Each structure stands twice: as C-alpha cells, then as structure tokens.
C-alpha cells in the first residue's frame, strides 16, 4: 500500500516543479461514504472533467455521497482497478497520475450501452 505522503512525493519533482494540483488528492485516501472532507469537491470536478459525473453538475459538495460512489466505481471499472467504491490507494494513485486530457467515458465497442457522449 502506498501512503499519501509517498504518493505525493512521487510527483514532487524536486526541481522546482510543485504546481501539480492533483497530488493533493492523496489526502483523501481512505475517506469513506458519508464523510465530508474539505476539498472533496475538487475531486468531483476531476471525475466530472473525465466523464464520470454528469456534465450538467457544476456545483459539487464535499460530501462523499452515493453519486460519488457510483462515479468511483465507474472510474475503477474503466481503468481496470479493483472495484471497491472507495478511495483506496490504487484509485488515488491512478487519479494523481499524469494523464491525457481527453474524457474516458465514451461509447465502448464491446458494450451495447452508450454511456456518455464526448464533444471531441
């Protein structure tokens, strides 16, 4: 298990590059459903940006609510992570990893379900 500090350290370049906001998400490790953690809304914005929360929502709360659990499960399924619905170390590590800016949730060829559209 990777601790939040060591995960954050992975992305502290040590050469003056400290402006990587997502690494702060490491502090949400093991936050559970029903909890309220200041800044959780930023994590929801992240999931919204990449297609896991409805794009119509923009006013996110800091509550770890059912919709957030559903988004996490979808995220974990799509990225081949253990599906726990929790902010476990695998999920946090994935979230803070550098990535492509394109949305993840688009029509999947292996499924008949059209999950979400992408504007690109």
């Amino acid at each position: 298990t990777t601790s939040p500090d060591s995960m954050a350290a992975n992305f502290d370049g040590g050469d003056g590059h400290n402006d990587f906001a997502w690494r702060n998400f490491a502090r949400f490790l093991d936050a559970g459903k029903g909890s309220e953690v200041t800044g959780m809304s930023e994590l929801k914005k992240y999931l919204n940006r990449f297609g896991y929360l409805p794009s119509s929502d923009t006013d996110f709360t800091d509550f770890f609510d059912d919709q957030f659990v559903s988004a996490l499960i979808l995220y974990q399924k799509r990225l081949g992570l253990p599906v726990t619905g929790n902010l476990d170390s695998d999920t946090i590590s994935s979230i803070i990893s550098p990535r492509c800016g394109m949305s993840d949730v688009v029509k999947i060829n292996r499924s008949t379900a059209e999950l979400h559209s992408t504007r690109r």
Partner: protein
Amino acid sequence: YAFFNGQPRWIRSSTLTYALSPDYTVDYLSSSEIRRVVRRSFSRWSAVIPVNFTESREYESSDIRIGFYRGEHGDGEAFDGVLGVLAHAFSPENGRLHLDAAERWAVDLEKEKSKVAVDLESVVTHEIGHVLGLAHSSVKEAVMYPSLSPRAKKVDLRIDDVEGAQALYGSNPNFKLKSFLESENSINTA
C-alpha cells in the same frame, strides 16, 4: 479499445499529412529531435493500418497539426502546468494534437534526468490514436490507456490498440498478426 461517438475516422485520403507548429514548440529540444520522435510515432500506427503519414512544411494546410501549448490556448481545454494533463487531441477529421509546453518533454530518458520528465514519443503515439479515432482503453498495457507516469515509456502498440485501429481502417497488407502476437508475448514475458 473504444471509439468516439459515431466512430469518426479519416475518410478523405489514405495518406495524411502532418506538420509541427513552427511557433508553438519547446526550446530545449531541437526540431530534428522532435521530428524524429513524431515520425517514429506515426510509423507505429501506419505499420498496422493502411494509412500513410507524410510530414509537411505547410502547417496550416496539413491534416494533422502538432504543437506545444501553454495554459489557455484557445480550444477551451487549458493546460495545467507540470504533470496533471499532459496533452490532448481531437477526433477525426479535426487533426489538432496539442502537447502541454509546461512538461519537461524527453526524447531520451537516459539523458534527461528530471524526475518529472515525460516521454514525448509515448504521449505522441497515444495522441495519434485519438487523432485516428480511438478513445481511451481500459487495458493498462495499451498505448491508449489514459495515464502515463513520469519517466515511463510506452510506445509499442498492443493487440488492443491494433484491433481498435484496424476496426476503423482495416489492416495494413504487410501486417502479420502472428509475428505481432509473438512479439507481444515476448514483451509480456519480459
């Protein structure tokens, strides 16, 4: 593998031109270094599908236009500084491929020592997948998986990438699935 809604793909030609922006670049890599990496990235895709990519000096009129941009750069998808979002591209037949100029892009990870260095070839190969019509894959080993760690290199297409691209464009007549799978197995074993 996955596609964008409507499965858009390039239909105007089997030969696509690409060009690097003469203005939006990074100053610590030479033009020839970047061009060499980009050429290799395109060749990986053209080896599996019947699409050729030709470099052009005419940036504005090229099918695929590649540039390094910083922060807000006019397409509504601002870059965010070091790490975070590394790059983005647009689905067919838009042709824009944007790299975050704030990253420390590396063409040789043995020479580039920064802990936050990002392998240019890996990211360009991934973004070309988007340009061709592939969305993100759930297969961690695939080039089209959405994330890439600093200093990591992932340039070899995997069967998931190949199947996706060939579903859109068909197979390159010279592509040999058997030898590809043997090569992939040796990578997996290693």
